[in-house]
């Protein structure tokens, strides 16, 4: 069973990898890149919320910090976005530790609303901070394309490959955490905070680790997003909508599972992008009407997330096989 599971993940990753080459369409590649970024964001968010049970409604803060750190360093000091990405990840980690440490004593929704408040404060700061161009935002200067400059103008494939590498890295990091001591500790904290503490787990420390790892990955994906879009402003990278999109796609796919964000992003991102391409542009929001309605329908009819549906199916399948064996 374990080997089959590993093979399924390998199969999914392989399919994703060959998709842009068998269907060379720019819109499609664009959606694939967004899919990889958001699935990666979902995986990172899963570490703190899915594994450790600390609901974060403020991951846009780390996404934005990542995007802004690399962009400012490149824009003002001509530092390679790759270095900026590392600085952004470190900065987001530190900030996440500083702001969430005092919040970890809050339970459940109180913690969730606190993360939302923190993200809104950080957004407000960026909106009125002149050094980072405030609400106007920053257009990243176009330079010669290449891996060092982290800019590619002639094709989307390099962006796809980079996004793919990051996505795979986050998936394996999440998988690694899940399968190791830390993952068990985090799940113990999620399931019963008191019991975990009674067993001698330093709950605050492990929640802090989970938050820092999660924030670092989120920030790196923020840099990637900024380099791909080549323009950022606070309303684009810090809004509640980004935080909620990450929450939505993970919950939709199946929270606390490695496959959850992949399934969720695979459903939501093409859905929102294709409806936008087909129906958007009229400026009337038909795309979001449909998108909203579909989310409601999925939530009502598949409350366990899409992965719940798959699990149910496979369990039924197994029992049929078992029954068949018993009969023969």
């Amino acid at each position: 069973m374990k080997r089959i599971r590993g093979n399924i993940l390998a199969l999914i990753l392989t399919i994703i990898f060959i998709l842009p080459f068998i269907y060379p369409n720019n819109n499609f590649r664009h959606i694939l890149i967004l899919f990889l970024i958001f699935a990666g964001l979902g995986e990172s968010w899963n570490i703190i919320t899915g594994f450790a049970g600390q609901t974060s409604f403020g991951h846009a803060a780390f996404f934005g910090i990542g995007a802004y750190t690399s962009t400012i360093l490149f824009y003002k000091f001509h530092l390679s976005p790759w270095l900026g990405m590392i600085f952004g990840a470190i900065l987001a980690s530190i900030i996440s530790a500083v702001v969430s440490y005092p919040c970890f004593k809050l339970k459940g929704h109180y913690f969730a609303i606190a993360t939302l408040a923190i993200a809104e404060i950080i957004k407000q700061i960026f909106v009125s901070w002149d050094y980072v161009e405030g609400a106007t935002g920053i257009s990243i200067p176009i330079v010669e394309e290449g891996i060092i400059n982290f800019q590619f103008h002639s094709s989307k494939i390099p962006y796809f490959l980079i996004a793919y590498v990051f996505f795979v890295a986050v998936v394996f990091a999440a998988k690694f955490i899940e399968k190791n001591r830390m993952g068990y500790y985090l799940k113990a904290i999620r399931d019963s905070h008191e019991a975990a503490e009674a067993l001698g787990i330093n709950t605050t420390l492990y929640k802090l680790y989970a938050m820092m790892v999660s924030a670092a990955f989120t920030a790196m994906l923020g840099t990637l997003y900024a380099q791909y879009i080549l323009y950022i402003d606070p309303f684009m990278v810090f809004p509640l909508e980004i935080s909620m999109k990450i929450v939505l796609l993970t919950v939709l796919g199946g929270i606390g599972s490695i496959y959850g964000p992949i399934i969720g992003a695979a459903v939501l991102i093409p859905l929102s992008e294709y409806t936008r391409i087909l129906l958007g542009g009229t400026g009337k929001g038909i795309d979001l009407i449909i998108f909203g309605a579909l989310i409601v329908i999925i939530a009502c009819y598949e409350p366990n997330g899409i992965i719940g549906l798959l699990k149910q199916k496979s369990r039924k399948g197994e029992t049929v096989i078992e029954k068949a064996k018993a009969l023969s």
Partner: protein
Amino acid sequence: MLGQVILSGILIGFVYSLVAVGLTLIWGVMDIINFAHGEFLMISMYTAFWMYALLKWDPLVTLPLASFLIFAISFLTYKMIIKKVLDAPGLTALLATFGLSLFIRNLAQFLWTPNYRFITESIVTDKKMAFGTLIIGMPQMVAALGSVLMTGLIYYFVKKTRMGMAIQATALDRDTAKLMGIDTEKVYAVTFGISGICVGVAGVLLSTFFPVYPEAGALYSLLAFVIVAFGGFGNIQGALLGGIIVGLAESLGGFFLGTQFKYAVVFLLYLLVLQFRPKGLFGW
């Protein structure tokens, strides 16, 4: 000047309280974060606007109609959507209400364009009251009074009536309440409906001095989340006090630090207070 700022903060705070009371009821009784709460408020604002624009009804005349309409919408929302996700694990209910808010907001934008609309000639427009050196706009005054009255009614309903006690019992322990013969299904539906009345009233009152547009509810729901957590989930007094504090923090923050920081001050205050009261002011 400072007195003026404090007074206007308290007045708008009462309206925030009413919006938050609606949210805290659902949250306390069902443990559900209703992301569409602000959108219900927005529908109420539009109801006031359209009755004014098409039939020349004054918003204060529309008030009962709008609150009944939002009551009905909330009730149906419970029956059609919330009921199905009530027992779902984790954040599924949130997923549903968030989808609903996206749906309503964009439907409003589709039907009525994103333009700002104003009610320019209601009974209260442009009237002012003077208390010594303090001047209060009539719309704000009426909104505050209406909100206090409504909050008081809800409080009375929850604390003193039979249905209210059933709501409290269900909030405390659903299964025991059921064993005691309480129709929890009905309690949930009624709670949702009452929460709708709260934003129904608040929306109409706000429409006399705030622009009406599809995004109008978003800010209020964000503030209401903070107020509800501030006061302690499910606590009406907490929501009332939280609303006033948030109203004050907003206007004082705007006065001393500049309007761009007024919400940052609110959120910061929330984070600070929770350091000392991790379950809100009245939480237990």
